[in-house]
């Protein structure tokens, strides 16, 4: 029998990495706080209280206030049609409605501007960003609808409620968490998006900060704008946590819920089809047609661009390295959160969520300033770009790793230990198999985000670095729409399979119970 040895609460390397990553995550917010504190009130007031800031605030506010409800309406309506009705070609539409996530918003915007050159201002911003981001509501809502216990709806029916009343009084309240969560993501994307709005000449805080940065590098005025943007972001976070409410939505009762019977659409079939087809046309067909148009116009010569292959390789390289680094550094945080839950570990985890909800432009500004002042050798290096990706996309990896870790049957791991495997060997032989799919999904999400990232890459990438997104953007700035098209296509081709993999991982489209199928 083995030797008696002191017990260790937690592998200390994990703790050190988790702590260090979370502290790094505080850099962007810390930068804003420190610069606001050191700028002095009068300078700051002069920078913030001016007509330009008021205009930006109105623009950004209106954008969020219109886009978020519109995304909720589109997302919930399409999720309900897909999950609860016998919509013709439902399985196909289930995929197509998620597909806009694979098209970067600035590419979609490029497609729209090509199709309708007069498009500009607030309504252009609303149209494009609603079409790009409503899947953030659609996907979680559809998943929640599938998990809802149909007997609750049957009970409501037995209590005398009609179809509409059941939806509004029983179903919709239970969708509160996915709707509110999705709405927060839509809102945060509005605050962070740069390319899509710049393309339609609609000024938000983020576009203004980028312009300011490009003209005066990193003056106090960019920082002042960034601090107001951070404030907007905090308002959204608070609104979301208030919107979540206190009610519990866990299913009461045991066993596996039965699959839901789908509703016949009857005379609503045509309007329902019109809605779904309309969304797909506006969100996918228009941008794709434009890209196709420019590709045809450019012909073979457009593909002779030397930058194309280089940008593709660089983008894939950044995507793979960024995904790997993020996954590796997210692991300690997720492991501690799942295996050693405590108030401290929850605080550690949520610190990282806060950082990633800040717009990328704020993180980029912070990293530029901090590296120039404190660690100059890091400035303008690929490592700094990867660090920015890490801070921005860490939660995507954490959330997925958490889910995977939580699915590991602890009994199996302990069985392996009692059968002679050391804790590490037991984890590797038993747990890793359970975590691998979720880890892969997390890595895929990070990869996807990096491949289509524009704003912070523009600010941080070493000069001469060419990624698909930045090369696309420089063609657009030169009004070379033909030259931009191959880059747009490559970005879409890179992200489509990854998006489909993520979509297909869960059986999002619920099957009907056998014997009930039409």
């Amino acid at each position, binding site marked *: 029998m083995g030797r008696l040895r002191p017990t260790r609460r937690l592998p200390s390397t994990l703790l050190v990495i988790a702590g260090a990553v979370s502290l790094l995550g505080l850099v962007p917010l810390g930068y804003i706080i420190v610069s606001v504190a050191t700028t002095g009130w009068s300078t700051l007031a002069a920078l913030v209280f001016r007509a330009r800031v008021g205009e930006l605030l109105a623009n950004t506010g209106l954008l969020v206030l219109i886009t978020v409800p519109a995304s909720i309406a589109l997302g919930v309506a399409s999720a309900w049609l897909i999950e609860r009705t016998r919509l013709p070609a439902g399985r196909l539409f289930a995929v197509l409605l998620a597909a806009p996530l694979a098209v970067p918003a600035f590419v979609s915007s490029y497609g729209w501007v090509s199709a309708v050159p007069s498009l500009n201002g607030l309504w252009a911003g609303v149209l494009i960003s609603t079409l790009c981001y409503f899947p953030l509501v659609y996907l979680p809502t559809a998943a929640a609808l599938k998990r809802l216990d149909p007997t609750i709806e049957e009970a409501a029916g037995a209590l005398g409620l009609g179809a509409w009343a059941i939806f509004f009084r029983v179903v919709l309240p239970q969708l509160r968490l996915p709707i509110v969560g999705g709405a927060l993501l839509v809102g945060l994307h509005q605050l962070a998006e740069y390319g899509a709005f710049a393309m339609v000449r609609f000024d938000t805080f983020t576009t203004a900060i980028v312009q300011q940065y490009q003209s005066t590098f990193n003056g106090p005025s960019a920082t002042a704008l960034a601090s107001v943007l951070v404030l907007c972001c905090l308002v959204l976070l608070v609104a979301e946590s208030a919107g979540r409410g206190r009610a519990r939505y866990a299913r009461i009762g045991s066993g596996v819920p039965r699959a839901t019977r789908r509703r016949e659409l009857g005379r609503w079939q045509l309007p329902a089809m019109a809605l779904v087809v309309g969304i797909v046309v506006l969100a996918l067909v228009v941008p794709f047609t434009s890209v196709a148009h420019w590709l045809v116009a450019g012909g073979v010569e457009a593909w002779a661009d030397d930058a194309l292959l280089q940008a593709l390789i660089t983008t894939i390289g950044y995507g793979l390295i960024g995904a790997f680094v993020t996954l590796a550094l997210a692991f300690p945080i997720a492991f501690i959160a799942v295996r050693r839950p405590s108030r401290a570990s929850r605080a550690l985890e949520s610190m990282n969520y806060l950082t990633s909800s800040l717009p990328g432009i704020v993180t980029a500004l912070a990293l530029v300033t901090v590296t120039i002042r404190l660690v100059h050798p890091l400035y303008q290096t690929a490592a700094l770009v990867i660090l920015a990706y890490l801070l921005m996309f860490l939660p995507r990896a954490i959330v997925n790793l958490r889910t995977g870790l939580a699915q590991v049957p602890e009994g199996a791991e*302990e069985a392996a230990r*009692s059968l002679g495997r*050391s804790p590490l060997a037991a984890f590797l032989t038993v747990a890793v198999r359970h975590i691998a799919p979720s880890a892969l999904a997390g890595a895929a999400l990070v990869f996807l985000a990096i491949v289509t990232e524009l704003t912070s890459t523009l600010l941080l990438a070493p000069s001469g670095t060419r990624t698909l997104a930045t090369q696309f953007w420089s063609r657009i700035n030169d009004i070379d729409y033909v030259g931009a098209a191959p880059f747009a296509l490559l970005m879409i081709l890179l992200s489509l399979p990854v998006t489909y993999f993520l979509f297909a991982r869960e059986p999002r489209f619920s099957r009907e119970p056998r014997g009930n199928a039409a």
Partner: protein
Amino acid sequence: MSQIEIAGLGKSFGGTTVLTDLTLTVPAGSRTVVVGASGSGKTTLLRLLGGFETPDAGSIRIGGRIVAEPGALVPAHERAVGYVSQDGSLFPHLSVGANVGFGLSGRPGEKSVAELLEMVSLDAGLATRRPDQLSGGQQQRVALARALARKPLVMLLDEPFSSLDAGLRAATRDAVAALLEAEGVTTVLVTHDQAEALSFAHQLAVIRDGRLAQVGTPRELYARPADVRTALFLGDAILLPGVISGRAAEASAECALGRVPIGNSHPEGAANVMLRPEQLTVEVDEPRGTGRVESVGFFGAAVVLGIRLNPGSSSESVVRVPHRSLDNPAVGSRVSITVSGTAMAFPTA
């Protein structure tokens, strides 16, 4: 010789005390059952024995060597301890054969997978199946074979039969008991099921709120429980108020069933008198019987008679007594009740 010695064991999780000053020895080759309600700390005890937790106080010795004390332990993989959890915890990604062979190291003298499967009365043909293709009982036996492969000194079983249906449960339990006995493996089983505890154990330990309430043979604990709660936990009991008189072997209790000798020492005066229902024999005794049948509950082989004793007197009370269903008395009939054996006297509340 004692295989396991647990001394003054204590464990708490985040301010909640789960085990307090728990002391227990398990003789080599025997089966000890720790029985308690859920939340009593029995699973924690098993996890401490398995090496998955470190105690806050006390120590555990296995085979005479300390394996756990505050701040130090021999980790699970270095103890010769087998562990079978409630659901078997088979590795879902491995075949049945690979599960059973998981702990084998390839050294000579080890049993083969086929031999191990045969030991738990499973067909060797199952080796290629996936765990999810087996029934619950088969999964439990595979888990046992997997744990036996390493020839553990000690086998820990965490409610291993609770997921099986009633018919399979007793058969599996007896087979496992026989197998562990034949292999000479010291066994600790935890359960909340008193019938399972009584039938499986050589030594029975009742755990309550993280402390051992009583330790002894199943018969001892059933017939002579230390207190009312243990009595009720281990089976049905009839509790009647009574008055104790006499000392030592002559002590007896006057209660609604008349004068009953008591088997434990209790000061003279008022007491709670406990009898097991099967100590009572009911006979129809018209018209002199002191009891009147009020209800007859039918359970197939047996009936349960609700009998009102001494109606109208100061010692009126109702007892429920099992009786064979062939000749059960009718509701309203007069019966007399004779008591065999001794009663236990406990302090009144």
